[in-house]
């Protein structure tokens, strides 16, 4: 990639060489070959691994060896063995709570951004977008160092004499996981809602005001319904990211904060049952797909005007 691009003299007379080997020769790839070339890498490194992964869930493990005979054992084990289904449900609920917190905090901010003008709008928006690019593990670490039993918050409160014993309900349980994920994922909720609010045509709001609606009524009957697609997209995004995470629960969840993502991860670590882990991931994909479909539908929705 070159840093500076020089514009060549585009206006030059066409000569015999150009006509002979020019555009036709270079552009004349057979359609099938072109298609095959385009598909080659995405197939090899995205489709094939995902398919292998889907299939692996239908094999089982005996001792330490994978037996390549199709079976539904992994899936029945998910329902029959204690612990898996309840963790799955509690993880989905956790995802819903995280999405709810993110949307509740994100909506007012998106609304504020949409009401700002000019430079201020994008400057403030950037402040909420920048943390998305900041190291994920560092953010968890920083949050944990505040919430922890030996963390900044507890030690300061102890010093100030507000408490006598360190608070322990802030760390190493599902609440800690929920709070941490909500903080990490809020920006993912703000941006789609902001985009949806920005898309609302101004004349709709003016019409509503002209027809005598007070601002609250305009908000409830015009703005809120039209921004719901952004809410759905933001909620889906945060939900998907929350339920698939396994690092955050591991770092702030302790023993109590066990989530489905951690169970899956452990199958590939000391649990060492890859087929079962693959089957569990497929089950994880069900709520994920539901969320993606919801977001896709919301994204396609057009104003019925």
């Amino acid at each position: 990639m070159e840093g500076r691009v020089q514009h060549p003299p585009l206006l030059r007379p066409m000569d015999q060489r150009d006509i002979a080997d020019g555009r036709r020769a270079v552009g004349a790839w057979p359609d099938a070959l072109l298609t095959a070339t385009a598909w080659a890498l995405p197939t090899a490194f995205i489709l094939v691994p995902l398919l292998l992964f889907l299939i692996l869930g239908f094999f089982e493990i005996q001792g330490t060896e994978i037996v390549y005979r199709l079976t539904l054992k992994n899936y029945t084990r998910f329902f029959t063995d204690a612990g898996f289904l309840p963790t799955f449900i509690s993880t989905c609920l956790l995802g819903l709570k995280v999405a709810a917190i993110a949307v509740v905090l994100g909506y007012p901010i998106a609304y504020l951004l949409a009401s700002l003008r000019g430079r201020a709008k994008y400057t403030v928006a950037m402040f909420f977008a920048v943390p998305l690019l900041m190291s994920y593990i560092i953010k968890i670490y920083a949050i944990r160092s505040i919430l922890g039993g030996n963390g900044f918050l507890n030690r300061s409160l102890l010093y100030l004499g507000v408490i006598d014993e360190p608070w322990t309900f802030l760390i190493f349980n599902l609440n800690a996981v929920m709070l941490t994920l909500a903080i990490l994922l809020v920006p993912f909720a703000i941006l789609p809602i902001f985009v949806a609010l920005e898309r609302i045509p101004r004349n709709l709001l003016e019409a509503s005001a002209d027809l005598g609606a007070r601002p609250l009524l305009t908000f409830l009957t015009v703005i809120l319904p039209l921004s719901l697609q952004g809410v759905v997209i933001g909620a889906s995004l945060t939900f998907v990211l929350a339920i698939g995470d396994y690092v955050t629960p591991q770092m702030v969840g302790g023993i109590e904060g066990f989530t489905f993502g951690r169970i899956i991860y452990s199958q590939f670590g000391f649990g060492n049952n890859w087929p079962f882990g693959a089957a569990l991931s497929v089950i994880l994909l069900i709520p994920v797909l539901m969320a993606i479909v919801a977001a896709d539908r919301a994204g396609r929705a057009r104003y019925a005007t």
Partner: protein
Amino acid sequence: MMRLALPIQAALWIVAAFVLLLLYGPLFLAIFFSFFAFRSNRVQWDSFSFTAYARLMDNQRIIDALTNTFVVGVIAVALALVIGTLLALYHHAGRGRGRDLLQVVIYLPFLVPPIVTGLSLLIFFRQIDFERSLVTVVIGHTVFVLAVVYRNVLARLQTVSRTLVEASLDLGANRWQTFRYVLLPQLMTALLAAGILAFALSFDETLITLLVTGTKSTLPMWLWSMMRLGFTPDVNALVALVLAGTTLLCLLATRYLTKP
């Protein structure tokens, strides 16, 4: 949007300030404690020093992890830029269900949770007996950031007027020349923005990397292993440096993203 009543504006700003505090507060505290010690439940104001930073430079494992992260990031971004641009050009050049389907495949690693992307690659590498190393990390990152490049380039391609390309072809440039001298200059800022964004994503990638990495680790892996041990001023110093680097990247990216 309509102008808001003052009390409502104030309320919205309060929520915004609260969330900003949640987003940035922990990070600033970490940076703060890279300079000051925290003993007997209070900040030791007279303990200001750069020793934590100096110790970082002596830690060969951190230097190695940083180098690995840069190497992986640069190669993965370069690969993603080339492949993503070609795929975007392919999609832009025609219509049809096949192209739309290919688009979905390209977006898949971004749509499914990272744990699924990571696991599928992990299984794939084991099935083809490919040992986990930095090479597998590069592949994982390329697959992950490809969608970013593809999306950015495609969005830009759709704004480039077709008449420009047609004019170029009519005036006798062949397709390569048209791409190189007409299209590429138009794509340049999109590629730069996508490249920076992709590098930032790769630099930070944890959930996929953790699954496909071999014995050599990238920075997030090293941080992950350190943080299980506890909090030290060294880690805080590293955190501060990484944050400074990311902020710089963000500023660069916005510079190019905001350019039309």
